[in-house]
């Protein structure tokens, strides 16, 4: 069983401000049924001051407690003050949450943020780009940075990421995003290929992705040597005498190798 603080217990046993507000000035949502957590928050705002807040939560004890205490925290505050509240503030106010339950406070924070965006007529926050603190897996409150970190520490598959930080293990809505991160960041990991694997992989890309294309112009390519990240190749057939050869090497061959093998590869032509 989780170690809940007395404050958490108090709030799930007798949650404050349960319900909805008719004609609310702002409504915010977070979570989804599939994940096992969903929170709706309703705000009444007068002259920039939150005069009333109510919530409805589908979730565990700490989710209800987070929602309940959040409504208490924001009633009487200005909208600007409320905006500064972080998920950590919510957890602190509850005298802490078990680490596995921090996503409950994240959800409270998201619902509030959503409500305020809704109040100001702004777009949803979800599409903020390249924010390492952005939560990717809402079920378990796992941030982009944590997932990237797991990949950098050797996680190569979705299952391995799940084992490290649970990301993707709940409703699975975030799985495509995790896979994107896997594609993006685990390719860098490939530098850990041993020299033989590195050469074989280069050769394979040259054979499958490059040779065919050059062959269309009756040209060809041979791998001569690999020295660190420098890849020495020899162009054959019509390519060997083509004045655009350097262009071909840099724009096509090097690009292919950088994309499929290693981002730092340099292609050098051997005459």
């Amino acid at each position, binding site marked *: 069983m989780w170690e809940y603080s007395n404050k958490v217990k108090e709030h799930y046993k007798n949650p404050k401000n349960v319900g909805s507000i008719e004609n609310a000035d702002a409504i915010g949502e977070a979570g989804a*049924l599939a994940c096992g957590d969903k929170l709706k928050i309703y705000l009444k705002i007068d002259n920039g001051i939150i005069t009333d807040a109510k919530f*409805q939560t*589908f979730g565990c*004890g700490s989710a209800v407690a987070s929602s309940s205490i959040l409504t208490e925290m924001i009633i009487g505050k200005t909208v600007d003050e409320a905006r500064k509240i972080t998920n950590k503030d919510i957890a602190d106010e509850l005298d802490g949450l078990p680490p596995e339950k921090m996503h409950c406070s994240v959800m409270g924070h998201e619902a509030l943020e959503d409500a305020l965006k809704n109040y100001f007529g702004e777009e949803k926050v979800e599409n903020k780009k390249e924010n390492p603190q952005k939560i990717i897996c809402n079920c378990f409150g796992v941030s982009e940075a944590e997932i990237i970190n797991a990949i950098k520490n050797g996680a190569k598959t979705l299952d391995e990421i799940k084992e490290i930080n*649970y990301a993707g293990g*709940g409703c699975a809505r975030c799985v495509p995003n995790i896979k994107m991160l896997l594609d993006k960041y685990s390719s860098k990991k490939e530098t850990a290929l041993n020299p033989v694997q590195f050469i074989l992989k280069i050769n394979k890309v040259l054979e499958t992705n490059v040779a065919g294309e050059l062959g269309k112009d009756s040209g060809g390519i041979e791998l001569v040597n690999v020295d660190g990240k420098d890849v020495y190749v020899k162009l054959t057939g019509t390519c060997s005498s083509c004045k655009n050869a350097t262009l071909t090497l840099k724009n096509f061959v090097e690009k292919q190798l950088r994309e499929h093998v290693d981002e730092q590869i340099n292609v050098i032509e051997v005459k």
Partner: protein
Amino acid sequence: MNLVYLDNNATTMVAPEVVEAMLPYFTNEYGNPSSIYDLAHGANEAVKKSREVIADFLGAKDPKEIIFTSCGSESANMAIKGVLDVNRNKKHIITTRVEHPCVLNLYKDLEKKGYQVSWIDVDFKGELNVGQLLKAITPDTALVSVMMANNETGTIYPVDKIAEAVKMQNPETKVFVDGVQAAGKIPINLKDTKIDLFGISGHKFHAPKGIGALYVKSGTMLSPLVVGGHQEKGKRAGTENVPYIVGMATAAKLAKDSLDDELTRVKVLRDKLEKGILSNVKNAVLNSKSSNRVPNTTNIGFQYVEGELILLHLNDEGICASSGSACTSGSLEPSHVLRAQGVPFTSLHGSIRFSLSRYTTEEEINYTIEKMPVIIEKLVKISPFQKELKEIFK
């Protein structure tokens, strides 16, 4: 009302007779069964007798087929790893999607190590697709592993028939049955089956935690998991845990003697609880849909309410149960068993398992039936799915 304990599939109260029977082996009869002097004789005799009792409990042909272990997980690990180790040329395993995590995670691990694992599905009732299982058998199949009863839903799988059919197709394939949730709840008669290996855990039938056993059919080759001394005929090293072995044997005897009570009175109470909740709580749906179930278990989902929250409120009323909700498990994932049988998300996260024992009273069941609608009514008010709930409660 004192504590109402309805989580007997998690663990059970140690029976007072069991504690009584164990005590002398901590104090007067503390000898090492392997020693030569008189003091050890009592301990040695106790282990021998206990082995006979467990053999009788499981319907084994010969007490030699019983090996004492420390728990159900050890029994499973010993059986699975032991079989695969002596059949290294075979790399195929068949198991179900609904096994206990101790077995499931071991197979996931083996899958990573190069084994091919066929995962057998269950239908919406939780019943096993036996046809799919039999089709999966190949000459390369080293092991078929099916639990006898599911810990979350209580569903019984036809392991006798499966073992029979497996052996017809490939006599070399070994059959391991995780019997942890079946032992003490339904009759078991291994000598009449083709099951090779069968694991049990004492604390699920009123023995203490920390003791289990593995049945190994005579003639089944198995390499040991714990290597060391000659104990358990070299199949499981380590000085015998005499008091706990005595405790488990005592518990097994009590369980066998009260099997009739389990199959009648406990079943009646379970059915009463199930019907009581389903008829008094409108958003309750039955997850344990199979008619072939152990008599003590039911699993009920409460739509649009989350399981941990229900458990916390039950706890405040002195009722202990457990949940397939993501939030209560250490892994934070919703029940793989309920997901495998396609329980929808609307009730998956609000699934509660009630598991009774022979100590459960009618008064306790009445109390639970009375409390449940009150708790759910309170929690329904908090739910953001008011529109959906209105439909259900109208």
